[in-house]
């Protein structure tokens, strides 16, 4: 098991290197010069050139990449072109708000989707199955921005239950209640798509498992309905769901661009969009690196979790 882990981690290194090289090449070759976006209309050509040299943009991209890699090895992610602040700082201040939004949406998704999926499967073709299918379909097909704006219109503007956006009351003392109050709408909106998808996923996995021989055996043994469904069937049906969770891990830290934009949430998604539209290379690179790390970690975790839920799988 330990050997397997070490092996996987060693493989991850060249993968990460490849990812950074590729993404550095792509953003450097994309049209557009960061300096164009930093200048004031009245700056002289001399000052603009000075700025280009200061940012090292006068050098070809492989040289800049090598330099970036060298700095990275020393634990320095560089400075944002846009603000001059350390990239690590800009990212760090968004980790908290991002995780609070994505994690609560994540929890909401699975806490609702798994039981509902199980109920829908055990009562196939009942009214409750049709109802959940309807919601799953709706949740999957309503665009996030539309749902978000509709929720703001109804729950914020008309019913006056929640603020229209933001993550905290202006100048307020903060506190978890205030946070929660601001979190409800975006978290619900963000969880909707995943909820519909996961619900359907759990339902079909359950349907498949409940038709297998070992479940028939369990029934024949005279086990209670609860034991058959939740102990034998669900545990097996969850194996593919674990894969799904692993795949979603990177989005937890990556943020949710549209939900963040609609609700003015200070998350990683908006930082990403800003960095790309301003060609803020150091920030883009750091975000790419972070995402690549999360993808690799997510896959490793999934594989390890497999062994946990499926006793047939052993790593050596």
């Amino acid at each position, binding site marked *: 098991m330990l050997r397997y882990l070490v092996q996987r981690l060693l493989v991850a290194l060249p993968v990460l290197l490849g990812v950074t090289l590729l993404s550095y090449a792509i953003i450097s070759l*994309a*049209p*557009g*010069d*960061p300096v*164009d*976006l*930093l*200048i*004031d*209309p*009245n*700056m*002289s*050509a*001399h*000052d*603009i050139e*000075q*700025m280009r040299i*200061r940012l090292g943009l006068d050098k070809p991209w492989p040289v800049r990449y090598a330099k970036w890699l060298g700095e990275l090895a020393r634990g320095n992610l560089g*400075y944002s072109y*846009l*603000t*001059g*602040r350390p990239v690590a700082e800009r990212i760090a*201040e*968004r980790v908290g*708000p991002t995780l609070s939004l994505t994690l609560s949406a994540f929890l909401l998704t699975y806490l609702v989707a798994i039981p509902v999926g199980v109920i829908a499967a055990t009562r196939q073709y009942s009214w409750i199955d049709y109802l959940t299918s309807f919601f799953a379909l709706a949740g999957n097909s309503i665009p996030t*921005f*539309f749902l978000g*704006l*509709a929720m*703001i*219109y*109804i729950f*914020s*503007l008309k019913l*006056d239950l929640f*603020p*229209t*956006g*933001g*993550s*905290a009351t*202006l*100048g307020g003392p903060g506190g978890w209640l205030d946070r929660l109050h601001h979190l409800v709408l975006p978290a619900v909106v963000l969880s909707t798509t995943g909820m519909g998808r996961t619900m359907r996923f759990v339902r079909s996995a359950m349907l498949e498992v409940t038709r297998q021989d070992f479940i028939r055996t369990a029934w024949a043994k005279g086990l209670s309905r609860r034991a058959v469904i939740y102990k034998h069937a669900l545990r097996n049906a969850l194996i593919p769901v674990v894969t799904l969770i692993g795949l979603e891990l990177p989005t937890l830290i990556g943020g949710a661009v549209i939900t963040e*934009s*609609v*609700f*003015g*949430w*200070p998350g990683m998604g*908006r930082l990403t*969009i*800003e960095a790309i*539209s*301003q*060609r803020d290379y150091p920030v883009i690179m750091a975000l790419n690196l972070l995402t690549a790390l999360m993808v690799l970690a997510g896959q490793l975790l999934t594989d390890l979790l497999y062994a946990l839920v499926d006793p047939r799988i052993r790593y050596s």
Partner: protein
Amino acid sequence: MAKCGFRRLAAWILAAAVALAGCGGGSGDAQGTPPTGDQAQNQAPAQPAGPKQVTIGIWSSPNTFNPISYDTTYTYLIIRMLYPTLLEMNDKLEFEGRLAERWTVSDDKTQFTFYLNKNARWSDGTPITAHDVAATVSMIARPETKTTRRSLIDTIAGLDENGTAPEGKVSGIRVVDDHTIEFTTKGPVDPDAFLEKLGVNVFIVPKALLDQVQNPAEIDREPWSMEPRVTGGPFKFVRYVTDQYVELEKNPDYWLGEPKLDKIFVRIVPRATMAAALEKGEIDITGGAGIGEVPVEDWEKVSAMPHLTPATYVAPSYQYMDVNAAQPHLSDPRVRRAFAHAINRQLIVDRLLKGQGEVLNTPLNSANKYYRPELQKELEYNPEKAKQLLQEAGWDFNREIVLLTPTGNTVREQSADIIQANLQAVGVKVQVQKVDFPTRQAMAQRGEWEISLVGFSATFDPDFSSQVSAKGAYNYRRLPGPENDNKKHYNPRLDELLLQGKNTADFEERMRIYTEAQKVFIEDLPLIPLYAPKALVVVNKRVTGVKPGPQGLTWNTHEWDVTQ
């Protein structure tokens, strides 16, 4: 009833969704002007138990609070409340004293003397003196300093053509005494332009902070860039919550009088929900042209809300269709004039801006005092004339040209469709190509373009050479390829006039020159001005003393108050 409710919901979402689509945006630096002080009236607060506070809504985050290296109007809006300037410009576009209680201009217009208010104090209690002013200008002048402010000082004697001087030793600055400072210019300059640039737009930073700067090339990394603790404006910095809001509290020792408000919040609100936040009273005022406005789709509804007062104005900016006149098929002025006659610019204003804007024929819009109403009658919408001009110029009607449209400004993107239809109607085949702004810039710099939509944020100075002259930073008219770098298309006569205007100090004389320059511009039409949008600003009726205008919003915050 239910149906009606649903329709309202649908209409609201549609409007908001359009606003959501237009994110991002220019970083043009709106030029502001300065405020003057009224005497503070220290009335006893006749009311509310809670603190008096006002919230301003803006679209994006101010990425820095550094008054020397900043490059966006978002930052400008905020630091204008934090750092002192010598002067301010009021809503009538007149100068008012701030740090300077009075100022004089020599008869030959080369010497500007500012007499500073002796009561002015930094927030740490030390006096604000002429040494602070001199140190700030010197810091901007140092060649290695990272700054966007040099064009504001480049007429001062002792500075080279780049606006720099070794070690920031500028011969044109003389500290007469602690409260008097004198600037000498290289030659006679238009006093209005000088006072606007140096007086209104150079924020004074404490000398004590500047002395501690080790590396001016990284001045944007100084701690006071993100946490301005020693300031000297009507308000003091409390905190910035990333991407959420900036909190300011009043500076009770402000020398023009204690501000009446206790706090001002500047909140970052997505475009899509700006109208909702205004309706709910979560924000009181929109930040102004280009940084916080009511989306045009919501304007009718929001401006009619009983608790809001509309306060629109024309900012010194405009949208235009740039034409690469170095391309042989676009080099004939008749072709460009034909385009202008073919495009129904009034329709763009009426339909897309809901009438909240103006059509213009030169880069100077009605916010500029060199604006000439009589020149706006030409270039009227006339497809017949356009066709005729194209035939005269020998236009090849089989040719298809590409209209490059940067994304990020919804109205501009929609206008591309109207322009395409208008040009097709006179026989010019047009293909619209939408790209993000950085891509547009890259293509323009390589000369790989024909016509393109773009916007420009100007100052109140009438000089529009950056967009048209041979050395203009925004003149991208050339053929592709590095070998054509120096073969830019420009108009020597226009260049000469603009240079002459820049070096003339007398207002009447400048008016004559710039009127002539605008006439030459319309004849040659190196670019086709389309429209100048009005800033769609609203102010909650509970807030008093707010006077938004082309000079900005936060120029007189010490006079703001709330009534309930």
